[in-house]
């Protein structure tokens, strides 16, 4: 592992070690470029991951104070936990379920396809599927995505059997165990899936791709990576010419450091990334770094989500095996005859008893609620992931009234469901209910959104610098050596789980950064 001096301004400094930052770090290191990778959390491992929902949550989740506002139910149920993301080496790739889906062609052209949706801030991506396809291919290969590159699909569990049979009854055609970055056989020195059932708690077998035990050790092996853990970045600094020069962070002992940088790439997930830009405001960038467009923090998207849990007369034991064991993709199409733009995926999900009690219907009590828990072993479940509308008013801002442990303003996350989101969720709940009732569900519960795992759009990609924060390579329009490398770049959310696209964009960005460095453009 490299030991790069704080006064050494020749390295790329990456903030965040998850899907975006961890991948970018490895890709650059493989090209011989020096990288300082700053991670706020500790380094865990498959050995230290915990098969216990609350204990694991305490180990991995980002629990720094945040505030919420808006009409979304998360603000009521979890007012200080808008997002369920991770503060640990590997970031939220420790927690993610592994679904790895390419966006559809039309989803890169949301504004053109969906038209002028009132009270939405739709914009076409400045790239299309053809442009991203080679990088999707590289990401799928890197991550070992099932049903790509001759990697077999995973075997479905009991929860999938229920989903599959219901899907057949409803006439759905696209139902399988899907495209998962979970090894279905030994690959890349990682074991195959043991059907542990604790995908959200960090994979103890290492079958599920995470930058923690793939990208990061591979980057370390090059000798070009300097990974620093438990360091929290306070701000990015720049010079009079408007170029980023350094990153200021606090280490675990509370000491401040200033790491000089040739290039800075921010991948702190879609809440911390805009927060850092806003907290880096200066006389040259009074509205926040790279925010001449005013779009930093705006267009926050979190996917339309919701879950449908159903109980049956017979046992299911849905918690056995992969959490996201299969998918129905028929509703992911664009079909405005359903009464909304965009589409949604239906993916199996399960929660252990502790989390089921906490998330099935937050705040509920009484015999109606406990009656469902009594049927715990007979429950099946699905998660709905749908495209939500970008809105300028859905945004991450600094909360001047609440400070974190470093004295910095905490992020406030404001979200109001768009009428399109409401219509899509109602349709998805209805279809989910029908699916389970078609195979004998005795009771169906429509579970409201969990704290957001798919946080997107707060530094969006745009061709026009006035309409977004970064260009098609994630390079900020305002600061040429400042990049955004996570889901914040997303122009729109599409209906697919975002990780594969984040990884693909990071690979593509690494090529661009390496090229720009070699040409002395940054």
């Amino acid at each position: 592992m490299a030991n790069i001096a704080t006064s050494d301004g020749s390295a790329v400094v990456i903030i965040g070690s998850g899907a975006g930052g961890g991948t970018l770090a490895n890709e650059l290191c493989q090209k011989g470029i020096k990288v300082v990778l700053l991670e706020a959390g500790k380094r865990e491992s498959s050995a230290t991951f915990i098969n216990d929902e609350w204990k694991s949550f305490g180990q991995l989740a980002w629990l720094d104070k945040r505030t919420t506002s808006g009409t979304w139910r998360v603000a009521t149920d979890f007012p200080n936990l808008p997002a369920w993301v991770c503060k640990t080496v590997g970031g939220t790739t420790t927690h993610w379920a592994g679904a790895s889906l390419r966006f559809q062609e039309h989803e890169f052209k949301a504004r053109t396809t969906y038209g002028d949706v009132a009270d939405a801030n739709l914009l076409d991506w400045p790239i299309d599927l053809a442009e991203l396809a080679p990088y999707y291919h590289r990401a799928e290969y890197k991550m070992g995505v099932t049903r790509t590159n001759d990697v077999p699909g995973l075997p479905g569990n009991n929860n999938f059997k229920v989903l599959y049979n219901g899907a057949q009854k409803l006439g759905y055609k696209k139902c399988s165990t899907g495209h998962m970055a979970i090894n279905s056989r030994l690959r890349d020195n990682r074991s195959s899936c043991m059907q542990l059932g604790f995908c959200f708690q960090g994979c103890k077998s290492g079958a599920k791709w995470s930058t923690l035990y793939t990208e990061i050790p591979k980057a370390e092996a090059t000798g070009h990576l300097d990974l620093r853990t438990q360091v929290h970045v306070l701000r990015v600094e720049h010079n009079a010419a408007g170029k980023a020069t350094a990153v200021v962070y606090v280490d675990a002992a509370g000491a401040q450091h200033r790491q000089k940088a040739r290039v800075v790439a921010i991948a702190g997930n879609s809440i911390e990334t805009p927060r850092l830009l806003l907290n880096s405001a200066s006389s040259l960038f009074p509205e926040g770094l790279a925010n001449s467009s005013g779009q930093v923090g705006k267009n926050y998207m979190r996917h339309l989500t919701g879950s449908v849990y159903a109980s049956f007369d017979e046992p299911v034991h849905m918690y056995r095996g992969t959490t996201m064991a299969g998918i129905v993709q028929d509703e992911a199409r664009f079909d405005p005859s359903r009464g909304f733009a965009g589409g949604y995926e239906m993916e199996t999900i399960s929660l252990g008893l502790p989390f089921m009690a906490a998330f099935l219907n937050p705040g509920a009590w009484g015999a109606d609620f406990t009656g469902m828990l009594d049927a715990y072993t007979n429950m099946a479940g699905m998660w709905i992931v749908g495209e939500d509308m970008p809105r300028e008013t859905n945004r991450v801002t600094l909360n001047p009234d609440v400070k974190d442990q470093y004295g910095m303003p905490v992020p406030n996350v404001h979200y109001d469901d768009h009428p399109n989101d409401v219509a899509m969720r109602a349709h998805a709940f209805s279809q989910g209910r029908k699916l389970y009732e078609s195979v004998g569900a005795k009771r169906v519960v429509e579970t409201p959104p969990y704290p957001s795992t798919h946080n997107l759009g707060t530094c969006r990609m745009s061709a026009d610098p006035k309409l977004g924060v970064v260009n098609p390579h994630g390079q900020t329009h305002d600061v040429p050596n400042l990049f955004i490398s996570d889901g914040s770049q997303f122009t729109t959310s599409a209906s697919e789980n975002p990780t594969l696209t984040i990884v693909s964009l990071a690979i593509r960005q690494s090529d661009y950064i390496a090229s720009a460095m070699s040409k002395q453009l940054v």
Partner: protein
Amino acid sequence: MDLRNPPSGELSRRDMLRRTAVLFGTIAASSTLAALAPSRAWALELQTLSQGDGDALLAFAQTLYPHATLPTAVYALVVKDLDGAAAKDPELATLLRGGTSQLDSAAGTTFATASPDVRLAAAQKIEATPYFAKVRSTCITSLYDNEMAYAHFGYEGASWPKGGYIRRGFNDLSWLPNPPASASPTVGLL
């Protein structure tokens, strides 16, 4: 007072008399938990709360999250956790003591000995209070995140020590047809 740190089932009579606040009971022989517990008898000695507070909390937890066959020993975990937290948090102790009065007042009698219907109506009356919110949220973690609850509800907990479910029933559901291999391939070589 979970199965890893079992309560004493052999609390002496002298101890019982000396302590003023003790919750105790017996796990029914028919319960799935009877075989797991080292002793069917259980007792919880309160550190901070009074007998009346403890009795009220126990009855309140059973009113909020009624499960017909869930042993009282599991509900006692709510009391144990709140009593333990109150020992370190005087404001919480005050909140919990005041809550007993609120429950009794809402019930028009001693809440802990009131009928289920009266308890339910009383709980609804105080739903907007901080006491209600504190006890309700504690119930979620205290009731459902322990090994007795896992056994009762049929959740198998940590799977890693047992090698996961790949050979232990991850796909053993037999009341629906198996999907075709194209949708759900068979288990490959490990």
